[in-house]
């Protein structure tokens, strides 16, 4: 249980943020300069906020009203930095074991081996840090933070400095961390695919303030809150379960409260729980069930509300069996179709719109299986 409420002035910028998290992975999402890093620095004790309170598992780490500030080295908040920050004068093994020296309790037997195996860094142990690739450095940094036995792990855009291939290499490890290690994680990011895939709770930061916070599915549906450049990736999240396969055409059928979806084949067992992001720009609206249309997914929906116009387009929130979808239409179409809240229509989504970044795996449904979702 994490509870943060701080106010801090940095020149013109005012960070005034408040959020709570019950565990799992909490993503702090926002464009650069939104105050994400300032917020986790305050949680880790690397900076002292002017006002506020930070509580982890009932322990008060910062309370300015009572003049309380636990220094960083006594907080047991593990920190994975954007640039790794491995110690150059130590080997990988020495880096990993560094925090154990100062850890409060003796480690469980086999803990080091387990984390080394979890992160796939056994082959690197004897090496120095200079020759490691970016992805290897970041995995060692994650292992180093975990082995200090933190009660909370904060990660500051740990994938930002890596290329796409390296990101794909590390994401499964972070998923395993979230699902297997039981350490709550606060994860700073400005990438929607990352957040979709990892976050259980989403906190949207804008200009130092919390614009929205809550379960990832409900916050993601607020596409109007996402900043300009990220808007094209924004869309609703749908909780689904893998229901079957269309072997002849290589399609996978997902079942959700909103209805069935046909998507490109996923190499996962039937019954797997999956979270699917449906980009607002990929959703079309039809007044009647369409005929002679190539798109395979047609869901009956009700227009819930129509957001504020953004340029020539506007986001419609759609209710379908209790789930929320978001469709981005031109203002012209909204007028032509006479769309108003309460009207029953059909949402149309191409199967091809579901690329691999749209899926967020949950390894919980897959005991012992690899977390790859592609």
């Amino acid at each position, binding site marked *: 249980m994490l509870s943060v409420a701080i106010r801090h002035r940095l020149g013109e910028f005012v960070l005034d943020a408040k959020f709570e998290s019950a565990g799992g992975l909490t993503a702090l999402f926002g464009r650069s300069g939104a105050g994400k890093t300032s917020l986790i620095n305050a949680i880790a*004790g*690397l900076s002292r906020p002017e006002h506020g309170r930070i509580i982890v598992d009932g322990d008060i780490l910062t309370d300015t009203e009572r003049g309380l500030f636990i220094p960083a*080295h006594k907080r047991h908040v593990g920190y994975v930095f954007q640039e790794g*920050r*491995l*110690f*150059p*004068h130590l080997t990988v093994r020495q880096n990993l074991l560094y925090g154990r020296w*100062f850890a409060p309790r003796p480690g469980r037997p086999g803990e080091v081996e387990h984390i080394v195996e979890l992160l796939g860094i056994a082959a690197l142990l004897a090496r120095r840090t200079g020759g490691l690739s970016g992805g290897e450095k970041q995995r060692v940094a994650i292992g180093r933070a975990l082995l200090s036995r933190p009660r909370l792990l904060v990660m500051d855009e740990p994938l930002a400095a890596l290329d796409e291939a390296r990101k794909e290499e590390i994401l499964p490890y972070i998923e395993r961390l979230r699902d297997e290690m039981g350490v709550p994680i606060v994860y700073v990011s400005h990438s929607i695919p990352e957040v979709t895939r990892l976050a259980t709770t989403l906190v949207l930061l804008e200009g130092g303030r919390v614009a929205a916070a809550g379960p990832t599915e409900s916050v993601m549906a607020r596409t109007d809150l996402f900043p300009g450049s990220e808007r094209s990736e924004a869309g609703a999240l749908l909780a689904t379960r893998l229901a079957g396969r269309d072997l002849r055409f290589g399609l996978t059928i997902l079942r959700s409260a909103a209805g069935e979806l046909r998507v490109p084949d996923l190499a996962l067992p039937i019954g797997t729980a999956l979270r699917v992001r449906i980009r607002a720009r990929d959703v079309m609206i039809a007044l009647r069930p369409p005929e002679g249309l190539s798109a395979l997914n047609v869901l009956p929906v009700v227009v819930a509300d129509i957001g504020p116009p953004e340029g020539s387009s506007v986001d419609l929130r759609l209710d379908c069996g209790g789930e929320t979808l978001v469709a981005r239409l031109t203002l012209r179409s909204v007028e032509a179709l006479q769309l108003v809240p309460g009207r029953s229509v059909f949402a149309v989504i191409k199967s091809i719109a579901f690329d691999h970044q749209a899926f967020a795996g949950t390894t919980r449904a897959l005991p012992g299986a690899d977390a790859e979702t592609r």
Partner: protein
Amino acid sequence: MTELFEFSPEELVAIRLSLRVAFWAMVGSLPFGVAVALALARGRFWGKSLLNMVVHLPLVMPPVVTGYLLLLLLGRRGPLGRLLDEAFGIVLAFRWTGAALAGAVMGFPLLVRSIRLSVEAVDRRLEQAAATLGASAIWVFLTVTLPLILPGIVAGMILSFARALGEFGATITFVSNIPGETQTLPTAIYALTQSPGGDVAALRLTLVSIAISMAALFASEAVAQHATRRAAGV
């Protein structure tokens, strides 16, 4: 030719004394050097630029002036010298310990400069990372800062040693040139060149000085290379 390598007992004494003086000058100034370098690199206090100036004075003042100031301050009748003599029975003027002090003072700017540069080169974000892993300030210093500045410390020590070994002006002014007590290699060479028939002995000691200096240079080069490798994490 063999005559060149026949050391007289006085010459051997001068060589030994020189090494002892330079060693203690280096070791004695080290803790102060580290403390002052840390203060100058990281401290924020009133009089910081004044401290910086005082530390660097021996580098720019004529060595004889430094030696004379030491004599005024620490001589038998100097304010500090009298205090040390009466309170602890420590006399520095005209003793080998005084020669070591003169060498230490002359080498101090070089020592501080070298350590200060390496402290400033330390990535403080690594120290932050160590703190988040549970290391208190003192442990951060011992396990991260100190290992990272060690090459700078060693390089500074070598410079300080070499400077103390070659010290002439401040030494001869503060502790004179007493064979067996304060006569080091440079002052011995000077004395030999002033006496008739001392040419061979002067050349002998000159060669010894060159050999010691070369060894120090090699050591410093090896340390610098090691430091470069370490900084790259290989």
